[in-house]
């Protein structure tokens, strides 16, 4: 389950930012991905919320600085949701 959600976050990032899956690592961030601006950041967050059926708070949205953090956040939220 864990790795599945992690893979899914990477695919979403690859789709949203228009870079190939191989180029997406935990460290991928607005610094290394050209299209990761504030508009695409919002789209990325919305896509995560949609795919995993969860809602991120403004604080959580702000806290995502790279793909690894996004994946961890999603995993944490999914665990909380499952209780």
């Amino acid at each position, binding site marked *: 389950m864990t790795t*599945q959600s992690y*893979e*899914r976050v990477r*695919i*979403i990032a*690859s*789709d*949203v*930012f*228009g870079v190939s*899956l191989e180029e997406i690592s935990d460290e991928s961030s607005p610094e290394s991905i050209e299209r990761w601006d504030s*508009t695409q950041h*919002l*789209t990325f*967050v*919305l*896509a*995560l*919320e*949609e*795919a995993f*059926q969860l*809602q991120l*708070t*403004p604080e959580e*949205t702000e806290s995502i600085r790279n793909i690894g953090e996004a994946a961890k956040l999603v995993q944490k939220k999914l665990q909380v949701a499952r209780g």
Partner: protein
Amino acid sequence: MGSGLQLRSEIDHLIESGDAAGASRRLSELWQQEPGSALASFLTSRYEKLRSGLPFTSHRLALLRSFTVEPLVTLLRAAGFVAGLDLTVHVGDFNAYPQEILDSTSALYAFRPDTVILAVQTRDLTPELWNGYADLSHESVRASVERALNSFESWMKAFRQYSPANLIVHTLESPPIPNLGILDAQSDSGQSAALRQINEGLRSRCREFRGMYLLDYSSLIARYGYSHWHDEKKWLTARMPISAGHLIHVAHEWLRFLMPLSGRVAKAVVVDLDNTLWGGVLGEDGMHGIQLGQEYPGAAYQALQRALFDLHRKGILLAVCSKNNLDDALEALQKHSGMLLRQEHFAAMRINWGDKVQNLREIAAELNIGIDALAFLDDNPVERDQVRAALPEVMVIELSGDPNAYVDRVRESPFFERLTLSEEDRQRAAFYAAERKRSSAGQGFASKEDFFRSLEQEAEIASVGPATLARISQLTQKTNQFNLTTRRYSEQQISEMASLSDCDVVSLRVRDRHGDNGLVGVGITRDSGDSREIDTFLLSCRVIGRTVETALLSHLAETARAKGLKFLRGWFLPTKKNAPAKNFYAEHGFSMERNNDEGSQWVLDLQQNHIECPAWIKLHVRIEEKI
């Protein structure tokens, strides 16, 4: 997810190898699997590479808004591509819509949109009616309603003055819980009532101006659930009020307007029988064993039939394509007590064991419409795939899972939307029934002329008027085959042309012994110097091949001559579909003057030539003189 990844790489390979149709099919398959914001980005980037190789309908859309719509744009463009629409989207500045509408030199008008969506929230336009209602007196509520309507009206007026584009206006939503709680429903001047009053006022104003339409935003929210629709935190931090899972519903709702506005609509829906119009397999279960009726589980199929019946009422033709024994199927169609649809509701039938692709081709030919005007409804994924692969232009409706949801797949489909309903739409099925009689009658005649004479045709040529404006515009947007220039015009544009002194817009109505064919032809001309130019000349496929086109052309030529003009000119602009009109000018004595990449220009010397109205057509002319 695995198959999603595989599909993505397969798509990229297909694009590289130049197989646009194959890539497009996979893209739409992927979209069925995981529609959403992430995939939308992938889809638009791939479709952009394919757009030149595929028959997309282009449409320019401007969004005027009081909230963040950027993530919606990607979703809308992706959903549009899947439905055959290539949207170029302009997004107006945040909350700058009044200035953009009122300033004729704004970026909005420079963009030259085909359609504009005005999406304004209650809390932005009338904040006092959103969360300050408890403070308001009756008088101030009334003043707020009036102010809002006056604003809308001034925007609509200015918009119509500066642009012929369509305008779609979102209604104002009510807050989820009225500021005064259940008290609100007890008063006829409550908060919800005030907002309803604004929306009612908007509706009547939309009707006053041409080409303006209302999007019932409250009912869209209600359809998917008010309590989950909004995301207050994102509204406060990113001005995005709609929660992530619902963005796609807004995009789809917009698409339901954009499809009919761009002319990308189904004219006929071809339906399967077994496990589609009824549950079970007729050949195995027998007429009394199939599921169909008012109770579970047959009610799901009856509900689907009801939805199809509603399409029939809107002028969309129904046809059957089923692998069955003809006699068994006809018996069920005529005698089963649960059937809402009977044989007479179907304009064409192919009940046989043959290939569905071939059957669909035949149905399109029999109904005289393009393959791309067919929608296909079949529970069998194999049949759907075959049709998608062989006939990519057919609009395939995805039916899977619970049969109780089939009815929603039909009702929510953008392919069946219409924004106006003409008398012709309402009577289309009857026209086709009469046409079946006509063509079977035609077989017994010695010569074509005998047949034409036997039809006892009467043609009425009339100037455009308020009653015919919508239909004339609709014909310019929908007619593909017998259409010499394929120029698409909105009602507004037609009405503007008709008001010019050197321009004539006339319609052709045809009646015959089998019935009224309705308004089936349009001619638009412009006079300058000693010449009349035919801007538009089109004929509905319903009456092609019956010489009524000569009657209309004769009218255009003879009125030009009466005005002292010397030449009648017209272009033939070839498209993929208008081959039936290709020889029209040559057959009527025109000679070719010019021929270039776009098409050929033809001229008739009116001093040397007459175009006679065929002797077997009785002509009535009702032209109003322009002052």
